């Protein structure tokens, strides 16, 4: 029986993926393990290997279109296997063992359902991030399709969360369908009486203006419309969610950098040669990563993640570093940064940043982490505040090191000063705890030798 090639799930909250290129054409002979195609997920490009050896047939996975996770994209026929078997293969549900083999990575239930009915078109296999199929009436599906709306982005008000006509209409108009609140005569009519005992549902934040409303503000032809790619959509979704659901709290300190810059220069100057090149070239940011990791080790109560059920107190500090890449950004993680030397951190970062720009990071290299660093110093930014990236409870925004007047022992002096702002998830890290973390961080930065012992 031909082996199904599916679009695998390679990223935790991945619902669809796009094939960026095929390395074999219809009819080509492939060997198990050959790289068949590359998929572009929200955050990275992944190479997908052939699950079996044979002849590649029925290549239906088109390049550049969103394909639901678990949907078949091609079939591999054993040598000599009649092509007519395709219909049979398509009609039959793939046995679980086969699916597991073909899937290479674990499929969730929704993807399994899609894989089990490969005859269904992509639209019927639309998955949600948690793997469940989107419930939507046929009418809602059609209206969403016509309006170019993503069903995943629409909250269903029908039975069991089914998206129905009115939800799509509301989404088009840019307002969510609210559960009806019975208005009683006894209810105070004015805002002067805020203590209403009638239970009022928590109103979601005001819905943004609809696309049409925004476009009407500009003259037709005065702008170019660039469709969002999946990375842009993910950034938009995750950051909106983070800023709306995490109570942010900010703490800022100034750190004097002169000692750190001096140490850095000395260490770089003394770097041994390796393959005709210095074995490392430390950046200020590498030292910031190390200092933050050590600070978290010193203040372990701040090295946490918030969950509704409990606080996750992490045993090691994994520091994500925001890397700007064309069209967006990604946050590869330096794992166990406390235990790494500065040169190890530096070389790891160079490798991660280079592969991030090439979109070659593996999901485990950018998922998770216990904190993050965002550095805009290279742009001359003095100070800014970053958005916490869950599951982290903190993020450190790093400004430029610049000569500033400082007061030392009652005397005006000049020092190289870097302002950093720590954003905390106040559910997990209170203000005093955040301040304690920053004090520890400042200590490592201003006495950098302590990072080496």
């Amino acid at each position, binding site marked *: 029986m031909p082996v199904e090639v599916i679009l695998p799930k390679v990223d935790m909250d991945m619902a669809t993926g796009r094939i960026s290129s095929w390395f074999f054409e219809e009819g080509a002979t492939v060997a198990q393990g050959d790289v068949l195609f590359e998929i572009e997920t929200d955050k990275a490009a992944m190479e997908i290997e052939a699950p079996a050896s044979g002849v590649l047939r029925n290549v239906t996975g088109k390049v550049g279109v969103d394909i639901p996770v678990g949907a078949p994209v091609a079939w591999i026929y054993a040598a000599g296997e009649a092509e007519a078997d395709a219909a049979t293969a398509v009609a039959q549900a793939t046995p679980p063992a086969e699916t597991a083999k073909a899937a290479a990575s674990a499929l969730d239930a929704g993807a399994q359902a899609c894989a089990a009915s490969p005859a269904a078109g992509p639209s019927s296999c639309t998955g949600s991030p948690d793997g469940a199929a989107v419930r939507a009436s*046929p009418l809602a599906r059609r209206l969403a399709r016509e309006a170019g709306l993503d069903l995943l982005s629409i909250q269903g008000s029908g*039975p069991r969360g089914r998206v129905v006509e009115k939800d799509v209409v509301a989404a088009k108009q840019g307002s969510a369908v609210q559960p009806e609140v019975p208005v009683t005569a006894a209810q105070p009519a004015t805002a002067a009486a805020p203590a209403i005992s009638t239970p009022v549902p928590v109103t979601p934040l005001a819905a943004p203006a609809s696309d049409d409303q925004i476009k009407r503000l500009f003259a037709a032809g005065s702008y170019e419309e660039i469709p969002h790619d999946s990375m842009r959509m993910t950034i938009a979704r995750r950051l909106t969610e983070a800023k709306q659901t995490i109570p942010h709290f900010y703490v800022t300190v100034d750190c004097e950098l002169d000692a750190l810059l001096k140490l850095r220069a000395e260490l770089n100057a003394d770097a041994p040669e390796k393959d005709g090149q210095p074995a490392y070239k430390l950046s200020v940011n590498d030292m910031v990563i190390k200092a933050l990791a050590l600070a978290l080790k010193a203040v372990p109560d701040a090295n946490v993640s918030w969950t509704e059920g409990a606080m996750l107190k992490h045993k090691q500090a994994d520091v994500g570093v925001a890397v700007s890449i064309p069209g967006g950004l990604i946050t590869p993680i330096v794992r166990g940064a406390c235990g790494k030397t500065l040169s190890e951190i530096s070389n790891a970062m160079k490798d991660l940043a280079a592969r991030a720009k090439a979109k070659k990071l593996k999901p485990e290299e950018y998922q998770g982490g216990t904190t993050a660093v965002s550095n805009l110093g290279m742009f001359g930014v003095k100070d800014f505040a970053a958005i916490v990236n869950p599951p982290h409870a903190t993020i450190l925004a790093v400004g430029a090191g610049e000569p500033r007047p400082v007061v030392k022992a009652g005397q005006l002096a000049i020092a190289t000063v870097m302002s950093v702002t720590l954003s905390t998830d106040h559910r997990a890290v209170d203000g005093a705890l955040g301040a304690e973390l920053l004090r520890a961080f400042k200590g490592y930065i201003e006495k950098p030798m302590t990072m080496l012992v």
Partner: protein
Amino acid sequence: MDTAVRELSYSQAIQEAMAIALEADERVILMGEDIGVYGGAFQVTGDLIERFGPERVIDTPISELGGAGVAVGAAVTGLRPIFEFQFSDFATLAMEQIVNQAAKMRYMLGGAVSVPLVMRFPAGSGTGAAAQHSQSLEAWLGHVPGLKVIQPSTPHDVKGMLLAAVADPDPVMIFEHKLLYKMKGPVPEGHYTVPIGKAAIRRDGKDLTIVATSIMVHKALEAAETLAGEGIDIEVVDLRSIRPLDRETIIASVKKTSRLLCVYEGVKTLGIGAEISATIAESEAFDYLDAPIVRLGGSETPIPYNPELEKAAVPQVPDIVAAARDLVSGVR
């Protein structure tokens, strides 16, 4: 010439249609058990034997197969028989003649003959006649190409459709719900026909389409009036004919309302509602559905003798109200 419109009962409208047909065409004959002197099991033929004589209003022996065979033969050899069953349940006895002969002859003889036969079937529950005299078997016959199967729901329609059936060159099966016989409604005088294969929209609405047959049309209309008081606007489609099926009207209605409820007295499973549902699911109306399709049909039991259970075995107005309300309000 203006034709006067009077109130007639459903059974009077049938009798009038048969009288007009007998008057107009000497090839028309009536056949059936006890239709002559007794006037028919439900008194539908009444005194027609006195007006047209025993040669044209013929009492047949208590053998449905024999009677149906004679009727099919008469139709093939030039007459236009209208054959009455005492109860539609007894169609089972005549299936050979209906399914294998009447429905097949035109096809198997290459069009050399046709079978211009009308069969009338008093059908349905509600009269306390128990399991062998209360069934709704129209879907059985609706499954047979070569037959036309109709279920007029009003006095007006039953007269017009019976006259259309008499004029039809092929066998037409008319299922008449027994509880409709006494129902009165406006019926024009004289000859007119109502086309076979065309549904009627009995009530315009925008929130939900109810496709109903026979007596269920009236129950659906009653339910629609109740729900109109709740601001729910229901369209009621009277199917009238189950073969041929007026798919266009159903599809257009569901495209308008986005919701479909099928109501029929025959057993729900493998019944007319399944065909209507599938018609919508297969059509362009699918993309207009905003809720699941729901069927209300007869229960999966023989019709009980106990009057309360008998009522409970088929859809009643409160059942339709509840199902329609759930569909429109988004509970289903």
